[in-house]
């Protein structure tokens, strides 16, 4: 969910999200079609993303203000984890 929200800071469709996350993680995370489709539906229902346009049955989505707030909150949580993890290394 984090990576999908991160990818949708720019308007993208399902395939675009997969490509973006794959590139961003250096090939480590390849999101599956079922995961992308179901997560987009869940995020849209929660108002964290919104559909913007549809071309050839491909829907574009973009993050909403509420989604951005949720993403920042999650980023802060991860940063805190990262800080605490550094103590171990």
């Amino acid at each position: 969910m984090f990576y999908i929200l991160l990818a949708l800071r720019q308007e993208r469709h399902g395939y675009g999200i997969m490509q973006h996350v794959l590139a961003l993680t250096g090939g480590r995370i390849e999101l599956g079609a079922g995961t992308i489709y179901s997560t987009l539906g869940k995020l849209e229902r929660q108002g964290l993303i919104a559909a913007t346009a549809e071309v050839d049955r491909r829907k574009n989505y973009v993050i909403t203000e509420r989604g951005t707030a949720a993403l920042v909150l999650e980023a802060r949580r991860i940063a805190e984890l990262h800080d605490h993890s550094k103590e171990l290394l």
Partner: protein
Amino acid sequence: MSTTRAFWLIPFRYTVPADLERWFEQRAAEGLIADRVRQWSSLRMRLNRREPATYRYVVDAQPAPRSDYLTTYEDLGWEHVGQMASIHVWRRAYTGKRPEAFTDRPSATGRNLRFALAAGIAAVMLLVVAIVLAIVAVAADVAADESVQLWLAAGLAGLVGVAVAAATLTILRARNR
């Protein structure tokens, strides 16, 4: 030798999605390929005999898919084999690592729960029908032969309903697979 082979009641015999997928894949490895599934394939599944192939099959329950459902899968390399009621069947030929369509736990569990919900609704409907038929058989002023028919129908609906309810529990127990 026939170019096809039919199998009966496959989605009812393999109710857990992961088991149904493995069934498709094992048949394909034997040279019995599901190239197309249709509405009635849940009762009689016809597979084509040809060279064994390595396919990843994925089943997904989508009662009301959004307009971008098919393209999301197709863009990521999946071929739509068809659908039986709300169950969509997808496949992808591969070598090496077996591809996944559900790459995180919540979406995989969500898929399994959608199967359980569909089966659960069917079970409840069948059991309600069985109870209503039994009530009519007891309470209504019907002839003896009609009463027997009503009891038979009630019994049949009840038996199938119990079987589907058991399948629902099996799917729920395997929801994290």
